[in-house]
């Protein structure tokens, strides 16, 4: 009892003041989503009312006292057709409408600003292109489409922002993405909505939508000194990627300048678009798709780079429009600390035995 009564007290206190029934609408997609949901609620209410009216009506009209002898009726094809076709039609409307929204949520516009998000047990880590990173929080400007590129380092997680009506699962081993455009500055819930183990319910955070000015201020304050691409560049050097991808004519690996967004032909003859997902694959399991004209000598970096590191590398490769930077790095490699510069990829046997 002693446990219950403060609860009751608390409850009464919050009874009227703190009792929201609908989440805030804070993104461009939210009103569209709500329109669909309202439509479905309306249809459901009408359908439910019809069913209940019939049940209650018939129960009153044909209760035994009033209607002692039942009239046997076989059925009615007309009625049967009615209640097949009308619900089907309504469901199909929902299907089309829903699919339109679905594709809208999962097709980012070309001009979206990309933020990388890594989920791991039990936190969210966001990497802004400028090198700012944050944990269990995401600062974004309103009025600008933001694309999230998500990945998980261990199990399934799900990045959910109810106020924006968007959600996307962060799955291990593969990038997923979602986009949104916030409309109202404010602080909103961020939930992990896919059960991911013990502290699943603690894997929550805040989405802080800010005016563009505030956002700029925030960016400057949280600057860590290096942009994501610069971090990638350091990694590129310290993992000796530039040993092969030097961009020089005698290099063992292909030049990576402008490779992002291009179309490559593989040794199998297949053509692939180079996007973030492809770059990740190329780094972590290079032998699964070998570019035409090259042999699969690139070692795997699986287990040696964290997902954040991969993001940095990708951002770096995306930023390469010439090999000038690579060659610069090449000449400065000697300046890097001894241990880092020599970090040669471990032999694969070791990696396999570990499993």
């Amino acid at each position, binding site marked *: 009892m002693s446990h219950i009564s403060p609860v009751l007290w608390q409850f009464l206190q919050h009874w009227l003041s703190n009792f929201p029934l609908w989440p805030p609408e804070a993104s461009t997609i939210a009103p569209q989503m709500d329109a669909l949901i309202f439509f479905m609620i309306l249809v459901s209410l009408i359908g439910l009312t019809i069913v209940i009216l019939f049940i209650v009506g018939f129960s009153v009209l044909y209760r035994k006292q009033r209607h002692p002898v039942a009239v046997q009726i076989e059925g009615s094809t007309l009625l049967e057709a009615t209640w097949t076709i009308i619900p089907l039609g309504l469901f199909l409307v929902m299907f089309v409408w829903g699919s339109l929204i679905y594709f809208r949520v999962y*097709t980012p516009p070309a001009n979206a600003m990309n933020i990388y998000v890594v989920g791991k047990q039990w936190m969210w880590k966001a990497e802004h292109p400028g090198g700012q990173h944050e944990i269990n929080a995401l600062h974004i400007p309103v009025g600008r489409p933001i694309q999230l590129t998500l990945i998980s380092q261990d199990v399934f997680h799900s990045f959910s922002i109810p106020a924006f009506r968007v959600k996307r699962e962060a799955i291990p081993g593969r990038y997923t*993405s979602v986009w949104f455009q916030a409309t109202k500055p404010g602080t909103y819930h961020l939930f992990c909505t896919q059960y991911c183990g013990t502290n699943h319910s603690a894997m929550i955070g805040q989405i802080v939508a800010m005016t563009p000015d505030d956002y700029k201020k925030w960016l400057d304050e949280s600057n860590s000194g290096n942009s994501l691409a610069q971090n990638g560049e350091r990694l590129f050097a310290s993992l000796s990627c530039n040993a092969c991808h030097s961009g020089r004519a005698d290099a063992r690996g292909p030049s990576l300048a402008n490779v992002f967004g291009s179309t490559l032909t593989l040794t199998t003859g297949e053509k692939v678009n180079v996007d973030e997902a492809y770059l990740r694959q190329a780094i972590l399991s290079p032998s699964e798709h070998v570019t035409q004209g090259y042999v699969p000598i690139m070692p795997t970096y699986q287990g040696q780079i964290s997902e954040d590191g991969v993001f940095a590398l990708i951002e770096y490769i995306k930023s390469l429009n010439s090999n000038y930077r690579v060659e610069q790095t090449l000449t400065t490699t000697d300046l890097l600390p001894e241990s880092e510069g020599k970090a040669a990829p471990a032999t694969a046997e070791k990696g396999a035995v570990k499993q």
Partner: protein
Amino acid sequence: MSEPHAHDNAAAHGEDEHHIVSWRVYLAIVLILLAATGTTAAVSYVDLGIFNAVVALAIGVTKATLVVLFFMHVKYSTKLTKLTVASGIFTFLVLIGMTLADYITRAWGNW
């Protein structure tokens, strides 16, 4: 059928009046099966590209069909048995086909 009898074809296909397949059929089938095994093993040494898998599976399906039809007597069984076999294969194909619908179309477009 003024007096409908409910046991599906029970009278016609009971143990009493069972269709007995001649042993010669069995012998013929087993010889075909062995020959097919030899063929499929031999073909795997020839480079047919993607058709290696196709041929191997085609031979496998043929062999399985023969076993089902003759060793398992489906050729001589009731419609119900045939339907049962068909529904098993159908559901298996649903599992494969609908799952592949996801895997194959993942590469479409760039998400």
